[in-house]
């Protein structure tokens, strides 16, 4: 079981002080979080893509590249790459470049993403989503497979054997399909033989695990190997040594985040009662002490059988020092507790990919 961190790069307004950090500082905070995650022994870090002032990381690959130079073990991933409004050729070029810089530590999660601002920004129609995503995913998988790409689709100019460099050094870049929870997307992941990255974003920690059963069954129907049939789960998360304190500290930030999202989308923010329910044992918000969160992950594992759990930490302007502390606890305390029960088999081992040696570049800063 691997444990990791997910982030957006948060520059939203702190509900307690009313201030914001600069957008550039939010970007640099992500790099710092990645460094701390590696130091804490965590296995993976995923970074999202948005185009709004609250979440200013509009280009994740450069941030991952910056982090790659000051880490040498942790996996670096998009979470998610908003595939439908981007060009798969450019995406591959960017991530294979990070892969080179990081000595083969890159992964990608193409997905829809939860926000839609990139559609008008890049001139796409959200109503066209299904066709865009299917077409672009097909090309991304093809570029990942073949150095010379011959491809014809409906969403971008035809490719006639063009060479798309740089080629990832250690074979294909691992691609997980980002699934929001729609059963049709679950089946799509299985039909493409792709591992699935999905989330529990509150509510019950286990209820939607029917999707895990659906995924495994469908994978079997499509004749996928066990190496292709892997699940990673992400959930909002925050830790302090004292669980009650953690829930108290996170609440104003979570409320602020949900309030902002609710104002944009026309729903009311969650009340304290539903927050209590979702953070209690069995709830889908991983907020608490290291022991509580470890226990929750073990419970989720019983239902989901996933191979990697990450917590998404930066929403609602939680101060960076508190986030770094939570990352430390997740790595140094939760990870050993979880791995004591579930073992420490890495995803690389499961997919039959040799773990990349931590090669230090000549003259690299330590």
């Amino acid at each position: 079981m691997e444990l990791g961190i997910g982030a957006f790069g948060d520059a939203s307004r702190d509900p307690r002080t009313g201030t914001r950090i600069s957008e550039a500082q939010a970007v640099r905070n992500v790099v710092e979080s990645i460094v701390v995650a590696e130091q804490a022994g965590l296995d993976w870090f995923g970074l999202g893509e948005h185009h709004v002032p609250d979440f200013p990381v509009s280009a994740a690959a450069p941030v991952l590249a910056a982090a790659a130079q000051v880490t040498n073990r942790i996996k670096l991933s998009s979470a998610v790459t908003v595939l439908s409004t981007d060009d798969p050729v450019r995406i591959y070029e960017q991530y294979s470049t990070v892969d080179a810089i990081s000595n083969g530590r890159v992964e990608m999660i193409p997905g829809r993403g939860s926000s839609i601002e990139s559609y008008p920004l890049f001139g796409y129609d959200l109503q066209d989503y299904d066709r865009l995503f299917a077409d672009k995913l097909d090309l991304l998988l093809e570029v990942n497979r073949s150095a010379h790409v011959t491809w014809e689709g409906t969403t971008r100019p035809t490719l006639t054997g063009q060479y798309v460099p740089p080629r990832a050094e250690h074979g294909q870049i691992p691609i997980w399909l980002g699934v929001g929870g729609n059963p049709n997307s679950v089946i799509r992941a299985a039909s493409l033989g792709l591992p699935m990255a999905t989330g529990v974003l509150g509510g019950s920690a286990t209820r939607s695990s029917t999707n895990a059963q659906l995924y495994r069954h469908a994978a079997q129907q499509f004749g996928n190997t066990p190496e292709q049939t892997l699940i990673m789960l992400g959930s909002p998360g925050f830790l302090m040594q004292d669980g009650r304190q953690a829930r108290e500290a996170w609440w104003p930030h979570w409320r602020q985040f949900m309030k902002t999202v609710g104002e944009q989308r026309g729903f009311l923010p969650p009340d304290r009662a539903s927050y209590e329910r979702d953070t209690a044992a069995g709830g889908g918000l991983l907020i608490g002490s290291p022991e509580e969160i470890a226990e929750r992950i073990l419970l989720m594992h019983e239902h989901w059988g996933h191979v990697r759990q990450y917590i998404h930490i930066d929403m609602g302007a939680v101060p960076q020092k508190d986030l770094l502390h939570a990352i430390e606890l997740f790595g140094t305390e939760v990870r050993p507790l979880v791995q004591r029960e579930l073992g420490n088999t890495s995803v690389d081992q499961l997919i039959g990919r040799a773990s990349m040696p931590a090669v230090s570049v000549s003259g690299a800063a330590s």
Partner: protein
Amino acid sequence: MSNPSDRNQLPSRPPEPRISDPAPGGLHFGIGTFAFQYDDATGTPVPGAQVLRDVVDEAVAAERAGLDSFGIAEHYRRGMMDSAGPVVLAAIASRTETLRLGTAVTVLSTQDPVRVFNEFATLDAVSSGRAQMIVGRGSAIESFPLFGYDLAQYEELFDEKVDLLMRLLRDQPVTWSGRFRTALTEQVLEPQVSAGAIPVWVGVGGSPQSVVRAARFGLPLMFGIIGGSLSRFAALSRLYREASAEFGQVEQPIGMHVHGYIADTEEEAVERFWPVWSAVMNAEAPKRGWAPYRRERFDAEVAAGSLLVGSAETVAQRIAAGMQLVGASRFDFVAAASRMPHHDKKESIERFGTDVAPRVRALMMQPAEAATR
């Protein structure tokens, strides 16, 4: 739809650190690179990924050697690894502190200026204000079919995209419409960058129209020089000054981007560089309809300073003379033509930074003396 994009309504944020360009009249010495795949000692091409890691290492060497900037090119072909420049530059940012990080050139005509902004603003954030770029046509054309653009529309594409990019860099929120991308309405982009903070130069290969275009945009001008006569660039430089005045634009600096190789002696430099450079030129010649590249021409270009091959002392003199002839205040050196193995490139970068640039600075302080040499 509600969009939290009106930054004016947000609480103010602290100012951002920035490594600024040299003051007007100051000199700037940088490195340009192409991320070519090269052969190792056994004649086997090194992995492309290694080439990129080498580039990062060369940039670190450039900063240590006291140089001001490092620029990476953009290509989409076998043997060249520079398809995602801002990503490489962001990696370099983590291992350097003062080096300005740029491109040479960003092939803007086949990019979306919004994505270019996103990538460079992100680079600017991770580097604490060190991003810059040179936009231009580039000499390669493979990006046009790759991204579905028509080379015949090059001029229109470039004009429209420079216009949008500069709007995005200078005056957000932007309301804009054009032919080649979807319109923008009161758009702000992230991460936020102070207006005008990221320097943009226009790279030109020698076309007078491109020079006039740069003048019209009021942007600094970078000459991409691959041999030939420097007096041609001196003439273009005068054209740029005159056109700038005509368009009512403030005078902007001029730079030169020149290939070369530095060794202990002129003879050694020539001996090592001639086979590499003649192979490069003769590989390109049939594709571009050039005459075969001969030694006489090479020797002439070395003597004229449009190829920098020699000892630190002779190269410095030629650079100073060339900069004065062209009226340039910035000089970017493409070490070892970016073709030789990592070790040679790195050594040439170090020599340029520690031995050549200080000499050029000194010579430029004594213009009369330098000009008479």
